């Protein structure tokens, strides 16, 4: 970072290698936790990729027609059937919560305890709303439409299986994120990051950096949702 001159690096890929292989740290100025979260997300990307590639394989190879998704995910409001209405709202809520998370990170770095906490709380509530709507969607599909993991009235039975597995796995990610958002909102309000109060489990001090790391996770979960949205609802 600071102690050596970027200008003096050799040009091109060679410079990249020198920079990468240099003293002490490969990613200059990146705290350990943040680097760790990035690598974890890379690994998690492979999990979701495997899920979605499996879905594509199933769809490409099925001999039974795939259920018409715009009908399956339609919602009847005031007698009008609106395709993808619920999903549109869910996506909107989740993307908005990404926005509030970004603002929370900003206030975290400004050490604005109150606002950081409130925006974390708003993010958590957004996430909770998302999970709630997903629960509603699941119960509608299960109890109203009779979709099951092993069969469904609309077409290929892999539809239900993949739908519940992938949205369930993503929903678990969101839920874990929500739990951590609440925990961190409490930590921020209590001023743990200002007073250097030690963590309950790790007995280590933490910093507002933790908010950004949590933010990385949250943005990732949102990004994954965009892909799931595209593959399940739009395709």
């Amino acid at each position: 970072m600071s102690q050596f001159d970027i200008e003096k690096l050799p040009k091109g890929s060679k410079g990249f290698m020198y920079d990468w292989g240099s003293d002490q740290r490969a990613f200059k100025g990146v705290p350990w936790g943040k680097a760790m979260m990035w690598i974890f997300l890379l690994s998690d990307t492979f999990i979701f990729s495997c899920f979605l590639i499996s879905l594509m394989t199933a769809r490409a190879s099925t001999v039974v027609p795939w259920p018409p998704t715009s009908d399956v995910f339609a919602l009847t409001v005031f007698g009008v059937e609106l395709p993808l209405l619920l999903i549109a709202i869910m996506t909107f809520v989740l993307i908005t919560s990404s926005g509030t998370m970004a603002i929370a990170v900003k206030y975290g770095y400004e050490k604005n305890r109150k606002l950081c906490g409130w925006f974390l709380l708003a993010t958590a509530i957004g996430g909770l709303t998302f999970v709630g709507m997903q629960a509603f969607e699941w119960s509608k599909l299960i109890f109203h439409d009779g979709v099951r993991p092993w069969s469904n009235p609309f077409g290929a039975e892999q539809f239900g299986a993949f739908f519940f597995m992938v949205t369930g796995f993503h929903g678990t990610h969101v839920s874990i994120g929500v739990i951590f958002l609440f925990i961190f909102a409490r930590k921020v309000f209590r001023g743990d990051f200002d007073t250097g109060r030690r963590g309950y489990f790790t007995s280590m001090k933490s910093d507002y950096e933790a908010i950004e790391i949590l933010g990385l996770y949250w943005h990732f979960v949102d990004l994954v949702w965009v892909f799931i949205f595209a593959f399940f609802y739009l395709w």
Partner: protein
Amino acid sequence: MTDEYTDNKIETKSADSSSGSYSPPVEKIPAQEAPDQELYHAKSFWTKWVFCQDAKVIGIQYALTATAIGMIGLILSWGMRLQLGFPETFSFLGPATYYQSVTMHGMIMVIYLLTALFLGGFGNYLIPLMVGARDMVFPYVNMVSYWMFLVAVLVLIASFFVPGGPTGAGWTLYPPQAILPGTPGSEMGIVLMLVSLSLFVIGFTMGGLNYVITILQSRTRGMTLMRMPLTIWGIFTATVLALLAFPALFVACIMMTLDNLLGTSFFMPEIFTMGEKLDYAGGSPILFQHLFWFFGHPEVYIVALPAFGIVSDLISVHARKNVFGYRMMVWAIVIIGALSFIVWAHHMYVSGMNPWFGFFFATTTLIIAVPTAIKVYNWVLTLWRGNIHLTIPMLFSLGFIVTFVNGGITGLFLGNVIIDVPLSDTYFVVAHFHMVMGIAPLMVVFGAIYHWYPLITGRHLNQTLGKIHFWVTFVGAYAIYFPMHYLGFIGVPRRYFEMYDSPYMTSGVGLNQFITVAALIVGFTQFLFLYNIFTSWYKGETSERNPWKANSLEWHTPDYPPTHGNFGKELPVVYRWPYDFSVPGSDKEYIPQDVPPSQVPTAKAEQT
């Protein structure tokens, strides 16, 4: 890495030889980029030795657990060998138990023994010490990683005691047979296997993130990536592979668990069992194979790369010579790791694929032979005109090179589609993968244990027992696996419970008995090795500090054996690579990594 780029290395203004007068060299020590790590200091017996956050203790916990479960895998192989060699005399196994033994032996050895031992055991112990860190970057997560691994092992053991016993689907767990009646353990055994694997992946991810970030972000001053010991490079690349390959296994496990418990049809086609149509329809068993081998092939290198790295260090130290072509070795490790992700379908040549896929995967598979061959040549060239000490680690390293070349060459056979098709599912395959990813990495494990045991305990292992261990294991491994190649050539299929008087066995009569006797002897020797480990812990000959005269940081800690926090008050500063043996011009036979150039003014080259 930093040969030409001087701003990035510790500058040495060495004595100007032309001026005639000697001025002591000045070393510029880079500033520490991250504040010193705050460590958790254990207060009680429980937090010090059981729920411990010290990577060294976690490494030993990993190693002991892996060894314990590995012994079960070894004993299972005895049962199989007795059945194959003497089916009339030892009839206690029965076909179902035989398949269960095959399955559990394979799974235990590959994942719960080798992966856990190399990455969890050696990784935890060596990474912080070798890169000059106080501990892993997140000791708490590291501790949880071990306990997840232990739970995974316990779930695996539990599957031996459930109704129906453990799964007998083969370690590849191919559906549909893995979860259908008729395969032993298709009731609870397979579920526990899948759960155990999922837990292992979760636990490993926690540990693996720690290893990667410790290596990337927590090196000591002067420790550039190209000054790291090759051991660390091997473990690092293997961990990256694991972090990217295990997700596929995790997904496959989840999907198969759902197929089994919920009746989904991810992997299950429309299928009849005992004349009855099942509710499954439309799933793809080939999809499982793709997911499994996308994990399965990198897994081979997850086991092999740490072995490559460790053996390079062992050879260098015990031949008193720098590693030949250090950069080439690093790049070979990285390239092998990258290539290992695009070769997986060579395990599926007989599964039914578009012939062009076979062509593609055969090509990529054979390309891997290039960096691998580079490594083998470099090991040999490291030995060439070296001052070879025939210590036990060196013996095992030599054994590794020979065994690895043998196993690698049979890999060239199996990598070609047309040669693989007739050899597929014969004992040739069994012989190949046992040589290349069973015996060869185990040789390195043994060598590494003899090498680092003094560091861990302050005592040497018994040399006589060690020599017996080496020769019996080395010769015995060939006695076991060479005949298996022949059995494969004459077409003996693997995984058969008994060959009876089949025409396959006409010229192979007696070979199975011979292999069985050899396997029993080799297996017994491993218990001798364990006996050696446990007795030497208390009774072994006391080792002086740095008994092998190695350069890497782990031997140069203030306390010997290293204690919590590893490096006392201040972290070491690194001035050179760990292979400065017999440097021209220097009066010292070896120059440790933390010796500044001013202390060795006559040394010709400052190596990076």
